[in-house]
Each structure stands twice: as C-alpha cells, then as structure tokens.
C-alpha cells in the first residue's frame, strides 16, 4: 500500500523528534518502547459509508443541507470574508448556517483562499477529523488554480487534488454574498445526493494521499487523522 511507504528521501532530514521511537522506564522497572505514531494515533483508512435507504436518505439530506455547520478555520486571506456572514448585513444563520469551533462537530469546511503547504497539512488533518458526511467549499481563485500565487514555490494550485471539493467560489476575493450563494448551491448538491465527498475521499484514498505526500515532504503525521 502506498500510504505505508511513508519514507521519502528526506525522511531523515525532516525527522520530527516528537515522533521518534523512545524508551521509557515503567514504574516497576521495565523498559517500554514507545512508537508515537503507532501508539498515540489510530491510522486505519477511512471507510465508505453507504447511504441509508432512499426515502430516509432524502429526508436526512434535507436536514443536513438545511443545517450546515461550518468549521471556523481561516486558511488564507479569504477568511476575512467569513465573519461578516454572521453580521446583520448577511446573516447566514437564517439559511441554517452556523459556525462551529471544532472539526468534530462541523460538516462544512471552507478553504478560504490560498493554501501554503504548511497550512495544507493542517487543513488535511482537520478535514479528516470531520465526520462523514462532510463538504468542502473552495473559496477564491487560489483554491481553483492557484490564483495570483499560481507560480509560487509554496502554494498549492488545485485544492481538489488534496481533498474532494463540492463547490468552488471564484473571485479574488469573493464577497460574502458569493459565499452565501455557495451555500445555496451546496445545499442543492446535498439535497440531490451528489455531495458525497467523504465517501469519495475514502474510495480514492490512495490517490489523495499520494498527492498530499507529493507536496508535503516532511510527512510527520498519521496517514489518516481520526
């Protein structure tokens, strides 16, 4: 399995000392070897979760679509466009959109602008910690094709190579109205049952991982972040 092949050429150079194997002495004097990656983190691959029967799924998708819980994670400059959503002028709450502070409880991940490699690592981790079903909105040109950072040495060009994206919002930067429109279009997608990014991610897990690992040279985290 490719994700097992965690060693690129620079493994030694980018060693994360926190993930080194180490030996500790237990209270009764035994030596215990700790392999942080194995012992601290669950690394199992994500599973594809079959939708429920059609009628029920339709109802559930409606419920999901009408209560979108957004992870408050600002990745790039677009994150400044998100807070206005909760203000009286735009008031996303009336569309069933709410902000959540933790990935565990969120269903929508807005990648708000360019993603440097460093941020990508955190974004992947947060994305993987969200529960199925989960949706991604790519905000701004940068997530589509790199935007004004298209030739930067450190910024990714296409978000959909690293995680399944449901909606892109073009613009540099898109205004909050555009984001609201994105929510509406996402809702439509969900209700139609087409927003199945989490399962897509699980199905094409190896491909996504390979892409991720191609740009993240110092891969120092579990292959899947539960």
């Amino acid at each position, binding site marked *: 399995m490719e994700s097992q092949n965690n060693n690129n050429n620079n493994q030694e150079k*980018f060693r994360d000392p926190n993930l080194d194997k180490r030996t500790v002495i237990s209270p009764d004097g035994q030596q215990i070897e700790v392999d942080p990656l194995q012992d601290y983190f669950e690394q199992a691959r994500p599973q594809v979760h079959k939708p429920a029967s059609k009628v029920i799924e339709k109802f559930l998708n409606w419920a999901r679509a009408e209560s979108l819980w957004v992870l408050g994670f600002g990745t790039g400059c677009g994150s400044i466009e998100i807070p206005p959503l909760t203000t009286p002028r735009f008031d996303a709450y009336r569309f069933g959109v709410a902000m959540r502070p933790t990935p565990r409880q969120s269903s929508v991940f807005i990648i708000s602008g360019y993603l440097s490699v460093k941020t990508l*690592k955190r974004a992947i981790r947060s994305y993987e910690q969200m529960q199925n079903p989960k949706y991604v909105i790519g905000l701004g040109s940068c997530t589509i*094709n*790199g935007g004004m950072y298209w030739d*930067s040495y450190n910024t990714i060009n296409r978000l959909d190579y690293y995680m399944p994206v449901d909606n892109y919002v073009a613009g540099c930067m898109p205004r909050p109205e555009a984001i609201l429109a994105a929510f509406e279009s996402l809702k439509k997608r969900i209700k139609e049952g087409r927003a199945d990014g989490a399962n897509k991610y699980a199905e094409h897990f190896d491909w996504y991982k390979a*892409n991720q690992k191609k740009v993240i040279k110092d891969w120092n985290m579990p292959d899947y972040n539960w």
Partner: protein
Amino acid sequence: MNTTIEETLTSLESRFELKDIKQQRGDLVFVTVKKEQLISLLTHMRDNENFTHFVMLSVVDWIEDGVFQLSYILNNPEKHVDIVFRCMIERENASMESAHHLWKQVATYQRELYEMYGIDFPGSPRVHESFILEGWDDIPPMRREFDTKKYSEDTYFPRPGRESKDPKEHMKNKLYPDADK
C-alpha cells in the same frame, strides 16, 4: 554623546574601513563594510555609539556579481538615527559570521536567511532547523537561480487552461482597445 551622525561616521572611519558612505536622509546612512570587520563594527556600534537597537537583517541576491549583500540595520533609539551596514559575501557556499550574541533576535533572521537563501551562520542557534517552510528539499527558494514557476508546475498540479496575461497589455487592450490604432 552628543554627536551627530556625521561625527559618528568620522570617528568610525578612523577605526574601520568604510566604503560607499551614502547619506540617504538626515537620519539614515548606508555604509558598506568589509565582511571581516562587520561583527566588530556592530559590537562597537552597540557598545560605544549607543546604536542599541537591532532593526533587521536582510539580504539582496546579486547573482550577476556572484555576491549576496547583507544589510544590518541598526538604530540609535535616543537620536532616532539609523545606520545600515552592507556587507558583500560570496554567493558560493555563502557563509557569514553570526551576530546572535549581540542581539538575540538576530538568530531568527539568520535562520530565515539560511532557509531562504542558504546563507550559513555557523554557531547561530537552531540555524539549520526549518523555519517557515516545512519539509523543503530543493535549493533555497529565494535564490535567484531557483525557478519557482517551474517548481510550481512540477509540484502543484497546475490546472490546465489557465492563461497568463501581461497586466499592462491586458488592461490596455481591455480598456483602450483602440489606443494603438
């Protein structure tokens, strides 16, 4: 020490080899010094001339001349005067004496320079650890021989169909299509 910046420079000249003294403004002077004398000069400035504040350290890549130009900017907080000491170092195996013992924060600048330009500062704390790039394995990205566009195309899956236009031409064509005619 009620000296003006000119007097300071005069007194410095008697001790160090200063070249290309250029007074940009009343309170800003650029001076080029030799690599070997730089650290002792900085020390002197800090201890005797009251230039106690280290503003920043930056670098210019003169690839044509085969040198890096390091600029150490010092500030005299009482007289509000800045002096910039420039220092040329070889581009090949670039290395410079570390100044972190004078001001702690210099170490951070030096880490950045090492990561972005590959200039080594032996002895500087944590200088070889990655600074803002996590897992960079190519030549330092800010060196001018590094082709960032090619790197990006090779690495980041460029989306086909993207067009790049020269902004000036594009805007001209868009706004004044008839200007040339």
